[in-house]
């Protein structure tokens, strides 16, 4: 069916109500993805995949049941409705279950620039060539780039529709493309890889693949000849790529589920100082053209701009209807769900506000420190804030990036790290739905020799 997916979803909701549901919501999701992979200038993989499926969540009183199907025939839809109804009769009542209030539903008006035709119409040869150009530029950038894990060019086209029994029905399309490459540099016994990429909703918005290749090569080459430094406490600078991971940790800590379960070091801290005054964290799902933007969330609530941390003071958690009810608060339009089950919580465009100094200036003020370009492992505990991860990067000596460092750990506690955040750089750039500028933390333990 190529017609109006929002109407289709609304029709499935009607079927569910007719079959005995007291409330219902339906999602229809369609996606087409393509990936061209090139290695050492030869095509290695070409991948194309399409998917279309519908999911249904129904309520009968305070019981919830859900089902999904990729069989979108009339029969398949009837089976999905029947399955959800069978399940609802055996699930447990939950006094907090339910759809958002009617007054909370809606969709942003205006052009959000989430879809561009120029991604849909790209010929395969051109996609392969984009990957080839990125890898070729990396291989030519420096004689020490002797090998490659390849390059790829990827596109994704999506269509999402959502309707519920309180009168909401909406749909939107998305497009996305990216080019990346992973060069391998070698000198003597030292071998290192790194990567770089560009992403955009419009093909015309991508960086030139040659630029992507050159940056990737420079990043791999500068890691050669790594040193394992001695264990010590020093200022730690996160470049934007690794600073983004701190935002991941903040997201986990203000996520409605971890807050109502009291499994977060930020639970119960609304209105309190939780970070230095240099830290302002915003979640904004309304910025045109960005990756975390959408007209409404996965429960039909319009997205918005939410100040999460304002100059160090915790102002808001990120919530869907369920977690909001659990906490006695209002949804922040952050529902995010798959096809089946209850909606989870997702971010819009979540970012740390930029400061005024360029990163070079922040580094220039540090006598001895660690500039982190890569983090490894999962050593972050959101309950206690304990933080311990593997790291690689460059040593800062007398205000300059002096030599590469790897096989070390950085450790501290997120509570302390946020309060000790000394400066945010001016280099904020969105490469995904989370973005942070260069961040300087006054002191962490670097574990090495």
């Amino acid at each position, binding site marked *: 069916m190529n017609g109006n997916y929002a109407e289709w979803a609304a029709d499935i909701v009607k079927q569910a109500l007719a079959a005995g549901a007291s409330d219902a919501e339906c999602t229809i999701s369609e996606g087409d993805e393509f990936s061209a992979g090139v290695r050492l200038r030869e095509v290695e993989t070409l991948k194309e995949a399409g998917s279309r499926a519908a999911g249904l969540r129904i309520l009968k009183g305070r019981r919830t049941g859900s089902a999904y199907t990729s069989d979108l025939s009339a029969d398949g839809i009837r089976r999905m409705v029947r399955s959800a109804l069978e399940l609802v009769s055996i699930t447990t009542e939950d006094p907090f279950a339910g759809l958002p209030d009617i007054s909370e539903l809606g969709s942003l008006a205006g052009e959000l620039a989430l879809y561009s035709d120029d991604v849909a119409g790209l010929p395969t040869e051109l996609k392969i060539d984009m990957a080839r150009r990125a890898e070729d530029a990396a291989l030519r950038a420096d004689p020490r780039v002797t090998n490659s894990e390849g390059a790829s060019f990827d596109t994704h086209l999506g269509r999402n529709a959502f309707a519920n029994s309180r009168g909401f029905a909406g749909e939107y399309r998305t497009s996305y493309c990216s080019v990346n490459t992973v060069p391998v540099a070698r000198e003597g016994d030292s071998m290192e890889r790194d990567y770089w990429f560009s992403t955009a909703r419009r093909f015309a918005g991508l960086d030139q693949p040659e630029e992507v290749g050159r940056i990737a090569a420079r990043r791999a080459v500068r890691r050669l000849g790594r040193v394992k430094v001695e264990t010590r406490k020093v200022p730690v600078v996160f470049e934007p790529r690794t600073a983004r991971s701190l935002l991941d940790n903040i997201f986990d800590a203000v996520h409605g589920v971890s807050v109502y379960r009291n499994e977060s070091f930020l639970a119960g801290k609304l209105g309190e100082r939780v970070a230095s005054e240099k830290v302002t964290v915003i979640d904004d799902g309304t910025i045109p053209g960005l990756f975390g933007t959408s007209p409404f969330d996965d429960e039909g609530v319009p997205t918005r701009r939410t100040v999460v941390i304002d100059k160090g003071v915790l102002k808001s958690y990120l919530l869907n209807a369920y977690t909001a009810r659990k906490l006695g608060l209002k949804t922040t339009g952050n529902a995010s769900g798959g096809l089946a089950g209850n909606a989870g919580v997702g971010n819009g465009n979540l970012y740390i506000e930029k400061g005024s100094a360029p990163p070079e200036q922040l580094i220039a003020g540090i006598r001895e420190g660690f500039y982190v370009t890569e983090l490894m492992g999962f050593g972050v505990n959101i309950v206690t804030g304990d933080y311990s991860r593997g790291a690689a990067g460059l040593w800062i000596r007398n205000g300059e990036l002096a030599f590469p460092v790897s096989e070390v750990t950085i450790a501290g506690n997120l509570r302390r790290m946020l309060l000790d955040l000394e400066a945010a750089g001016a280099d904020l750039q969105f490469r995904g739905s989370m973005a942070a500028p260069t961040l300087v933390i006054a002191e962490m333990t670097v*574990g090495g020799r």
Partner: protein
Amino acid sequence: MLDAIDAPAGEMTVVLGPGRPGILLHEAVGHGLEADFNRKGVSAFSGRIGQRVASPLCTVIDDGTIANRRGSLNVDDEGHPTARNVLIENGVLRGYLRDKLSSRLTGAAETGSGRREGYDHIPMPRMTNTFMLAGESDPEEIIRSVSRGLYCPDFGGGQVDITSGNFVFSAAESYLIEDGRVTRPVRNACLIGNGPEALKYVSMVGNDLRLDEGIGVCGKEGQSVPVGVGIPTIRINRMTVGGTA
């Protein structure tokens, strides 16, 4: 854990308990021996067959044929029977894990290691159940031999950078060893090492090989497959601990 003290920072002697700490082998050795990385020459283990990469006490196996284990398969996802593949024998690197593509490209036999997450994924060389053979030492004697160190009976997830060989894995339960006795619990920290180097510092291997309880999931290039790990109690004389104290 309420009484836990800050974990130490820096290089020290580490004793891994039996079972799930076998994730060390999965990260430090296993991924680096998958043949796709090696035919491309991008693994820290590339071109090292026959070389010493671990202490002579270490023999590491990947075995997909063990009955009722999480990583076991009758045949791999390309129709090849799984096998007991020796990766490291008495410290010497013996073999890679190959799928059909790597086997054809390198002219070496398949090892029954071609696995895929589902019908809509491309097969790749993957591990099954990865473990170290038991040694001779009594586990209690291993702990008694350490004057100051860290004892880690349980681990969470890990990750490896195939090219540099650096790997991390996170302790889920750990204690200080002081004068040969396990004493105070410490806060969870990650451990970091370098694959081709880390196992050279294994100085004792226990007689208590245990396989994990079967909850492991391995992720690679966006595909998840169930895997098993196992290890006896081992003493590693030098490993970097990511604490704050």
